[in-house]
């Protein structure tokens, strides 16, 4: 008798577990992968804040469905990112995977997600492979292709006729891509191209070399902590007044609080700025500041916010029928949502065709406020990336 009761009980419990997922279909599940630990976790925090703000604006219903967002930490490692993505796909059965800061993590996660027939909505990394030969109909990005931002800086400096530029970047894939993108549009004289160790803390030796070469301008790519250190040391060596410093992905709203006036005068190119004038962006930046204690969002946040809005537009278009993947692909291609960058149009490879602006770091509104970045001029209008022609998708 006891044995039968036990097996009956076990059978009941097992059925309950099998039946449970069936109820989950009415909910929309989005898996969001970013970096939440270590010093780079500050980027993940900005992205998560923006996703939460997007959910607030949509009253917690993306596309009209009750939404649950599951956050995962990739720890800047491709294998961890892949594990997290697989857990989201198999255990949580998410309908969309979004996020990812780093190109190397994206190259590991995107095929895993699209291979399982799930949408991958990138909100930062834009490796050239996914824009070219490896483009996929289930992959969409709300950011840019990595080369586009340095291309804009290259064009700006080429148009201004600046010669004798000194280039610096960390010695890894993205560092090389940035300088390649720059040189695609900049055809002037390059004094030297210097690659430093990834994660290097002390740049005094390189700064001394730079001074001895006497260039007319300096162009660097130093993301994260490397940027903070390079900027401080560049400023303290007294080079700010001597050689104008141009950069990409080095100074942003997240690193300015750590360097403050050492960033003043810095010129960067970007597809978005906190002072971009359109209703969606003004709402995003204004409400972000209200919700998060006066902090200004960065472009990572703007991209993540747009990612959620893109998903919303797609689910709304198929009236909540998440099984209609073809319908959602068609809806996303139309990109019929109010983006923080203004007009939003997709290229054949599911990468946006967008404007790029020159931003300058200027003093804040009050003497004690941090510097802010403001648009100076438009460098590119409706700029396409250089790899789209290698993509075989046609629509």
């Amino acid at each position, binding site marked *: 008798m006891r044995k039968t009761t036990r097996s009956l009980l076990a059978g009941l419990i097992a059925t309950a577990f099998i039946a449970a997922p069936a109820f989950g279909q009415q909910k929309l599940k989005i898996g969001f992968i970013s970096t939440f630990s*270590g*010093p780079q*976790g*500050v980027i993940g*925090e900005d992205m998560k804040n923006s996703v939460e703000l997007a959910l607030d604006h949509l009253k917690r219903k993306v596309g009209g469905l009750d939404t649950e967002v599951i956050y995962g930490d990739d720890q800047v490692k491709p294998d961890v990112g892949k594990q997290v993505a697989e857990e989201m796909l198999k255990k949580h059965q998410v309908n969309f995977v979004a996020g990812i800061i780093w190109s190397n993590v994206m190259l590991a996660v995107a095929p895993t997600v699209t291979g399982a027939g799930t949408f991958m909505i990138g909100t930062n990394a834009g490796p050239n492979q996914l824009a070219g030969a490896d483009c996929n109909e289930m992959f969409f990005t709300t950011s840019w292709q990595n080369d586009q931002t340095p291309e804009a800086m290259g064009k700006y400096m080429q148009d201004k006729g600046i010669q004798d530029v000194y280039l610096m970047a960390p*010695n890894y894939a993205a560092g090389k891509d940035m300088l390649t993108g720059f040189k695609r549009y900049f055809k002037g004289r390059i004094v030297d*191209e*210097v*690659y*430093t*160790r990834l*994660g290097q*803390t*002390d740049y*005094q*030796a*390189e700064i*001394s*070399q730079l001074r*001895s070469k006497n260039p007319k301008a300096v162009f660097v790519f130093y993301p994260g*902590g490397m940027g*903070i*250190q390079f900027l*401080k*040391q560049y400023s*303290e*060596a*007294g080079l700010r007044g001597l050689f104008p410093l141009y950069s990409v992905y080095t100074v942003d709203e*997240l*690193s300015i*609080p*750590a*360097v*403050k006036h050492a960033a003043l005068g810095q010129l960067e190119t970007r597809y978005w700025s906190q002072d971009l004038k359109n209703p969606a962006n003004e709402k995003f930046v204004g409400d972000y500041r209200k919700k998060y204690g006066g902090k200004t969002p960065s472009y990572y946040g703007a991209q993540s916010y747009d990612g959620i809005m893109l998903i919303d537009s797609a689910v709304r278009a198929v009236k909540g029928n998440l099984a209609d993947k073809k319908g959602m692909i068609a809806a996303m291609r139309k990109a019929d949502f109010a983006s923080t960058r203004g007009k939003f149009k997709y290229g054949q490879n599911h990468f946006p065709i967008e404007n790029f602006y020159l931003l300058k770091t200027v003093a804040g509104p009050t003497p004690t406020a941090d510097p802010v970045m403001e648009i100076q001029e438009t460098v590119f209008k409706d700029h396409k990336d250089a790899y789209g022609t290698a993509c075989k998708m046609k629509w």
Partner: protein
Amino acid sequence: MNFVLIAEQTLNGLQLGVMLFLLAAGLTLVFGIMNLVNLAHGALYMVGAYLTTFFYQQTGSYALAVALGLAGTLVVGVVTELVALRTLYDRDHLDQVLATFGLILFFNELIVILWGRAAIYSTIPEVLAGHVELAGGFRYPIYRLMIIVIGLAVALLLWFVVTRTRLGMLIRAGASNRAMVAALGVNIRLLYTVVFGFGAALAGLAGLLAGPIYSVQPGMGELILIQVFVVIVIGGIGSIRGALAGALIVGMVDTLGRAFLKPALATVLSPTAADTAGPAIASMLIYLLMAVVLAFRPAGLFPSAR
């Protein structure tokens, strides 16, 4: 290749070496006297940077902030020793590595809880922020010169303490034969706590000096700790003379390598080959140096007599 550039890079190498020495001296003392592998040394460096930055923001006085930061790091070091490290002295090195690695994680998360994940803004007072004209157009930042001077002063102070005072005599005796020192009636536990506190203060000093020029963020200790271990291995474990020699050698080799290896290679190889080989070899140079030194002197350059 002008003289000014070479002089400037030499000073840069000296400054990096002095910074590494401040960290290496504490670490090698602890390893040599107490036979304790302390991976959390980098965490004390981080604590020194954070405390000094915090106090400078609160009080506005750099001198006071430095004093409080050093004192604070000393207290944190002593408390850590009393609470966590006392039990590890008789354990295997692997156990010590595991335990102190756990301490690294603990301190990193504690800093994140107290100050957040982002790098905090750390600066130096205006009087130190300028340049000094050394010789014919050669300008060097005052702050970095100050680091060199402080580092050499600390080296002198350590030499004086170790060779001319009673405490130093006990330290040297403890490094040679711990059991005998205890048997002679010296309070070895108190000696260990004092030595560890001293090492913690040195790490804190390195941290507060590095804060304004590097980035003050969680995990900043780990970035520099690897180079410090290379210094100790090259210099010889347990020897302060070795730490100084090793630190200056590593600082010079790393800086001069990064600065001059690519141009030097360009004279023998094609420019594109030098472009790829130069930075790659420069980043490996200190490890290659360590391998070469170990091949000829397995115990390091100035091993302490055991």
